[in-house]
């Protein structure tokens, strides 16, 4: 942690990006884009969360073990969503009827 000044500059840039993305997600919500409203909202939210994890939470400079833990949280949350929705979204299918 030798160069505290360059870290501060990075924080301000990331802060600017996060604010810009907040403005974007708020404005884009007023346009009717069909299913892309949700895709845009979640896409921007995932991008913002990634910026916070990489820069504010220093994941970028962390050991690989930390990366494994972060990836693990995403992976297990993915299991929760994908397996559950593979049930709920396919209940109306009558293929086997």
């Amino acid at each position: 942690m030798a160069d505290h000044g360059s870290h501060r500059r990075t924080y301000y840039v990331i802060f600017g990006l996060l604010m810009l993305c907040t403005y974007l997600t708020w404005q884009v919500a007023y346009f009717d884009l069909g299913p892309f409203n949700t895709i845009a909202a979640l896409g921007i939210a995932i991008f913002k969360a990634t910026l916070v994890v990489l820069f504010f939470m220093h994941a970028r400079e962390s050991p690989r073990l930390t990366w494994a833990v972060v990836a693990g949280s995403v992976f297990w949350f993915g299991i929760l969503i994908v397996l559950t929705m593979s049930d709920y979204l396919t209940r109306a299918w009558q293929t086997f009827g």
Partner: protein
Amino acid sequence: MSPDAHHAAIPGLAHHFDTLEQQAETTTLGMWVFLVTEVLFFGGLFMVYTVYRSWYPTAFAAASHEMVVWAGTLNTAVLITSSLTMALAVNASQAGNRRLLLLFLVMTMALGCVFLGVKAFEYYTEFAEHHVPGAGFEFEKEYFKPAQIFFSLYFVMTGLHALHMIIGLGIMTVMLIWSYRGVITREYYSPIEISGLYWHFVDIVWIFLFPLLYLIGRHVHG
């Protein structure tokens, strides 16, 4: 030098660690592991939200349209700013700048209080408009039942998030006292670092709550 003397010479180093770096890496990893459990804790609620929204998309859009959208947007900006001041607090602690560290911790806590104040105003508005699920609930007849599901999820998710903010303010109070008393030094700053991880995590939860609760009905009713 005996092991005991070695440890006594380094304030903040616990006896079961060899170096401060090893101790810092361990505490940081421990915090990350705790945050994984938090991801799945909130994840269950996001899961429920996903299922019910897939069942009642129009009712969720209509109910979401009743949110105070300017308050949600303002609170998003407030939390992102508090994440910046938190990152700067960690930076100041690494540089050993006690005065700046205290200033940024106070700013982070002040912004946290602003967030909770705006949230309280919103809850007041929702009570006044009879949007609290239960006997007094009022909504368009067509969406009466699923709208209550939306508002139940809204109060549980934002309530749990607000509880995390309150716990975060408690943690920051301890950090403020430790920083003031000189416990936190250029060498021993990992308490600030891992408190920051928690604070940023709570910010990330809000980054997802904001569009999913406040914005999904905008394009339908303006």
